[in-house]
């Protein structure tokens, strides 16, 4: 709502030059500290004056957060690695191309040159009510404005809604979940590792956060095991415009096949729920199956079981079904059928 949605209010700016220093600052300032990586999520809140902060901790000078390293056949990617660096990385394209493709489809070139993978996976939802400052559950209020008979909820969730119907807007998140990635989180002097699929939080667990990160936590790097290196990947992002727009639905999948049969698969769909959804029922149904018409059709039907469309997002149901089918098939339907 209006009044004034412009002019970024003043804050204190800290630019730590090491991971230790960053962790200390976050511990010291607790709730008062706001982390800025690429800033693409943060500036929207701060410039609109919808959220405020007294202290910003900017991570651009922390060397430990940069870089792509080989580790045991897999990779470890610093959280501050830009999306462009990921999209253009030879080694990521060679082994985990699904992530490179996802990163390359985010927003626009200038945003990719600055936005980071850590920021992209940790970003806040883009529900327009929430972003405009309406006092909903996610904002600490006691209602959801998007899930009403009169709300315009074209971009909202069809699955796993729990009072809140916002969706996860990240493109890299489904790819990381599909790759069985792990998120390395530092808090003070301690480090913990969380599986990507558990990094994201749904409203049933905590309606005010999109990830497990709390004040004082810092995502330092993302690890990809060698597991899915070189698998058959599929990534597709469906959106209105070809630039800038967030996904209406996206999908990342990794399939290991042998002799035309699927050994194991990961199928992860984004922007249909508050977290990137790993479709375990679909994955289980695919294991051991030939890639044929029945398998493809079944995968699609399983994927959308339990979907609950709202007034304006019913299209996400067939869209999700069709994307899952494409992922299994390896592309769009062919022939003139």
């Amino acid at each position, binding site marked *: 709502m209006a*009044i004034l949605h412009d002019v970024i209010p*003043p804050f204190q700016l800290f630019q730590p030059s090491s991971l230790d220093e960053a962790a200390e600052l976050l511990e010291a300032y607790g709730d008062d500290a706001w982390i800025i990586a690429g800033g693409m999520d943060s500036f929207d809140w701060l410039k609109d004056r919808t959220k405020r902060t007294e202290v910003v901790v900017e991570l651009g000078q922390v060397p430990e957060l940069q870089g792509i390293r080989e580790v045991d056949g897999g990779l470890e990617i610093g959280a501050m690695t830009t999306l462009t660096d990921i999209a253009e990385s030879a080694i990521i394209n060679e082994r985990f191309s699904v992530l490179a493709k996802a990163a390359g489809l985010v927003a626009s070139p200038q945003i990719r040159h600055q936005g980071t993978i850590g920021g992209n996976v940790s970003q806040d939802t883009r529900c327009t009510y929430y972003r405009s400052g309406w006092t909903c559950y996610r904002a600490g209020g006691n209602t959801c404005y998007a899930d009403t008979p*009169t709300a315009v909820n074209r971009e909202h969730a069809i699955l796993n809604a729990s009072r809140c119907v916002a969706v996860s807007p990240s493109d890299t998140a489904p790819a990381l979940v599909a790759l069985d990635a792990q998120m390395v989180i530092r808090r003070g002097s301690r480090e913990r590792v969380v599986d990507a699929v558990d990094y994201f939080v749904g409203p049933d667990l905590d309606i005010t956060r999109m990830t497990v990160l709390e004040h004082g936590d810092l995502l330092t790097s993302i690890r990809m095991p060698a597991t899915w290196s070189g698998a058959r990947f599929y990534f597709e992002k469906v959106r209105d415009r070809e630039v800038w727009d967030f996904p209406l639905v996206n999908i990342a999948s990794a399939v290991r096949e042998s002799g035309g049969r699927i050994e194991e698969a990961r199928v992860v769909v984004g922007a249909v729920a508050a977290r990137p959804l790993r479709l375990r029922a679909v994955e289980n149904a695919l294991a051991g199956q030939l890639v044929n018409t029945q398998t493809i059709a079944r995968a699609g039907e399983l994927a959308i079981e339990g979907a609950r469309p709202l007034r304006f997002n019913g299209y996400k149901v067939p869209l999700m079904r069709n994307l899952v089918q494409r992922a299994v098939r390896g592309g769009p339907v062919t022939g003139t059928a």
Partner: protein
Amino acid sequence: MGDNKLVGRNYTTPDLLAKVTGRAKYAEDFRVDGMLYARLLLSPLPHARVRSIDTSAAEAMPGVRAILRASDLPAPADVVTDLGERIAANPKGEQALSDEPLYAGEPVLAVAAVDEETAAAAIEAIEIDFEPLPFVVDPLVTLRPDGPNARTDGNCWGRPAGEPSAPIDVQVMKWASADFGEVDEGTLPEGEHQDEWAFGDLEAGFRDSAVVLDETFSTANNQHHVLEPRSALAYWRNGKLYMHTGTQSTVQTVASIARWMRLDVEDVVLITEYTGGGFGSRATGAVICTVPAVLSQMTGSPVMMRVSREEEQYIGGIRPALHGRVKAGFASDGRLLALDLFVVGENSAYEPQGDASFAGNIVSLLYQPRAMRSRATTVLTNTPPRRAQSQPGGMQGITIMEPVVSKAARELGIDQVDIRRVNAPVSKAPFGPAFGNNRAYCTSAFLREALDLGVELFDWETRKARSGRRNGSKVRGSGVSVSTFVAGSTGFDGLFVIKPDGKMYVQSGVGNLGTESFSDVHRVAAEMMGLPWEKVEVAWGDTSQNLPWTCVSGGSQTTHAMTRAAHAAASDAIAKAQEIAARALGGSPASYRIADEGITNGTRSMTLAEVARRAVELGGRYDGHELPDDINEFTTRSATALAGQGLMGVARDAYSRDGTTFSFVAGFAEVEVDVETGNYHIVDYMAVGDSGTIIHPRSYGGQILGRSILGMGHALAQKTVYDQHYGLPLATRMYQSRPPTILDIPRNMKWEAVNLPDPESPVGAKGIGEPPVAAGAAAILNALSAALGDDMFRRSPVTLDNILMALEHGRPMQEPLTAHI
């Protein structure tokens, strides 16, 4: 003009170097010593009244210099026309600030401070008690018997019955419950309406028809989103107001500012050399510029008011959505025999835009129905001001009509181009209502030629053959649309001086918003004077530089109007030069002609430089000391200031014109739909224009394709979104309102022009800014229905969710008539 050296040729406009080096200054690029910064406080509610305001905390903040309320602004003055007619100011019209905001986002007050941070903090410290008032954001909801009204006194504008010259006032219009019977199925009710006209025998037309269709189609509201917001810098010097702001005109903006500020026009100086787009939203400036003007008066300091993108989308203008019901009867050859058009237009709570009414006029010209009735109603909602946007009313009317024509062609088994060709206007074709036995008509129309050219260049037959053929998940379709809009006015003034240095100094009053007309039109004068372009200097953008009375760069009128004015001024200079030559060299004036930067009768010659020197010696008419009676007072003032400097060409365009000037465009598009996602992209597009003589090809190409893309945006994804329950906007960012990006359009677009001169203008040139818009929009829609079949959508834009759901369910699933979704 067959052997033209200038007209019809490309060249580098005089503003390009400044633009390309970043030296060009737009309004917010200026800095003045001691400048204060103003920011706006916007209404959080769709309709409210300010009960009380406490600004004490804000005023106490160091650095806060003034707080401006609506009551601090001058009440706008009446308009006095050239004929001395007084048109009373509308007391309920849009102002810069309001204590009864009528839309969420409306500016309520402004704060001036030493910097933006202080102004912003001050705004947040202001305590406002708003009384919420009833609101509505859907035109069909307010028309219901118990629907809320946007204003406390009503939901439409009108005049008391039988008083056509009374000022408009707010009235109430309600339809009966029974009228809404089929609205949920997507049939637009036809209740009470405001405007109506008709000609021909509608009943007979339907009777004679082979196919009769009854269709409803809705277009969306669309923000102009000019890239440069309407920021403004204002300061006062020696009693004059200096204003830096973007606009689509110069002297006419001075007239607006003077009226808003209750100043004499001589006391306003406008600096507007560069404007970042207009599209109709700032034809004569924007009333918000009075905020820094008054703040500057209050504080004694210059005041810069930066308008943010979000503010711009509120006050910057929106094209109104139109709901249209079309009952059309076609003969077996496709000829349109009867057209019954009913249009409901959405408006803000402020001055009505004429889009709903004008739609019928445009459609009547474009399809030449044998009989037609046009009924239109415009109702008010609590949404931001509607402003004319490129092809206002015409774009929507054509977009509503085109799917009907396409469907008729398919039912009749006729080619899509042929059905538009058989109905196309030719020569002086009529449009609009009948007055007795007479109807207005256009000056010329070469639309058939444009269609024929397009068929050939777009390879229509090949593309048509593959329409609807499924290939994997993809299916392609090709469509064509025709379009038209007014493209020329008359009666403005040309002014230039050829000085003793042999150069032409042109005073260009045309706004520089990107059309390049500010320079292009003067090529006509230079051509007539036989001067190379290097010898021409154009002054533009600063009204203290003695600019003549010039049209607004809106309504596609500039190319036509100002080439005529340039022609008139050049003719004036040539006549004077002939007289001067005859006096100096002997013989009759008529024996002299312009050649080689001089004037000659074959045996004796003078250079134009010499003619200029002689003009100064002779004074009187030759150098501007005596001026024609029929030029505008603005021109008189400017010409007077320039007197005595050389040979002056100054004249009013008094050329005759038989008819109203229109330009025509045929747009051809091929799209490819992915049936698994509903997504589609435009594979190819071409536009062919009939705009008379082309003055500057590259500039023309930029316009015809650029405006086609504006139309494509209306088909692809661009629209406003509101939560009707709260009356609040939801698409407040561009990633939500979705103007087209470079990747949303075809990579190689083509254009062509028929290039046949309009016979009613000495130069033969017509405008092009607006006719392409509907061509771009409707060609896409027609291509989609060629790919997917009829009845897949009934409103625009058509987004992937609409297509996917229609494919899944076999019919359009999008709510047909709900506004702002």
